[in-house]
């Protein structure tokens, strides 16, 4: 999954309040939900669940839920002690039984995480789990690093859409972006529409539907400039505010010099704006099809100022 981080705290106009919200623009979302036993988080860091092990900044294996782990001399039995103070978001403690349940379920589920090396997973006591393998496999450590632990008591058919875990984040609400037609318009595009087409199509509610993507970029100062530009009675004033909305000279704005670093085409409260500094070049007609990057037809784009 491609991920791009947007900036937090774009509310530079607000004084004295610490930002309490971190906003991330992630490239798409898993359609099949957040069930680790089906492959969610298979590259590590499953957000809502925690893993037995983790990797540090040097990619060395470090403990997460585990406190210690060892492999038997024949490589067949992995013994993992887990911490006793970890809790799921519903308040229940994370036990060795949950870990055993997770590995057993993943080994049988037929999803996108391969745990078929596992013969059985057994909780030998409250905080120790034994993972017994069919044959020695050193790469099994990657499953300990990537497989998020699910709670046995709260796992069911709707788990993928309503996950309970012991990870750093809790899923509060999932608004499926796809239902609003698009994922990350900037990085991934809408199939065959290039930014100019998108601007013409979706810059208003003309089509009868409000296309919006809440929270991509918000700044009261930018909003004020846009408002001023739209209500200006003469062109010179409008242009002045329009430019200030892109960059006000103090680091704020949706343009390339502003604080919306990804703002190549930026979504501001139902309205898509193409920066006037963006020169699209000569758009190509082909390739044409869904799934192409938004830049596919405009390979010659460049900043003109």
């Amino acid at each position, binding site marked *: 999954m491609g991920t791009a981080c947007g900036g937090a705290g774009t509310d530079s106009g607000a004084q004295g309040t610490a930002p309490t919200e971190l906003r991330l623009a992630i490239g798409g979302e898993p359609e099949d*939900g957040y069930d680790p036993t089906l*492959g969610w988080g298979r590259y590590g860091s499953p957000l809502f669940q925690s893993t037995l092990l983790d990797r540090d900044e040097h990619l060395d294996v470090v403990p997460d839920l585990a406190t210690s782990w060892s492999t038997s001399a024949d490589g067949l039995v992995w013994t993992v002690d887990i911490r006793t103070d970890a809790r799921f978001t519903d308040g229940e403690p994370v036990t060795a039984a949950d870990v055993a349940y997770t590995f057993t379920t993943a080994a049988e589920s037929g*999803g996108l995480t*391969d*745990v078929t090396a596992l013969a059985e997973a057994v909780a030998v006591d409250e905080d120790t789990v034994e993972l017994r393998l069919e044959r020695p496999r050193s790469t099994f450590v990657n499953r300990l690093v990537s497989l998020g632990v699910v709670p046995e008591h709260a796992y069911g058919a*709707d788990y993928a*859409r309503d996950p309970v875990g012991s990870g750093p984040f809790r899923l509060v609400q999932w608004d499926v972006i796809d*239902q609003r037609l698009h994922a990350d318009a900037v990085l991934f595009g809408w199939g065959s529409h290039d930014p100019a087409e998108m601007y013409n199509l979706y810059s208003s509610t003309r089509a009868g539907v*409000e296309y919006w993507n809440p929270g991509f970029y918000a700044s009261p100062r930018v909003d004020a400039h846009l408002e001023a530009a739209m209500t200006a009675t003469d062109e010179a004033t409008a242009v002045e505010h329009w430019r200030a909305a892109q960059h006000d000279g103090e680091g704020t704005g949706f343009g390339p010099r502003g604080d919306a670093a990804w703002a190549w085409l930026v979504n501001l409260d139902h309205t898509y704006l193409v920066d006037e500094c963006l020169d699209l070049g000569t758009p190509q007609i082909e390739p044409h099809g869904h799934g192409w990057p938004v830049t596919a037809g405009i390979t010659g784009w460049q900043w003109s100022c």
Partner: protein
Amino acid sequence: MELLTRGPAVLRAAGGRALRLALLLAAVATASFVLMVNSPVDPVDAYVGGDIAAIGPDQRALIAERWGLDDPPLERFTTWLGQVAQGDLGQSLTFNQPVAEVIGERFSPASP
């Protein structure tokens, strides 16, 4: 007098339409299934996608089993048809949700 003669005619027309719709849906379902079964694209390959190096043959077999790909096509189709006839549209593998729910959500107006 007019109502007495028109009533049955309207009913007959509606019945005919409904029958035609049922036949059309059956034909579409059959044709889609035949096309899908004969597609050169391996569904497991399509599902695994970029994770091909991380998914071994055992796991691929599990995926095929979960999806019922090992069963004969006719059996898969009749199972599906039987469930639809009972009002059960099944479970979407793409969305991990009941199909009826997935379709239902598309009809509900998008909330801001």
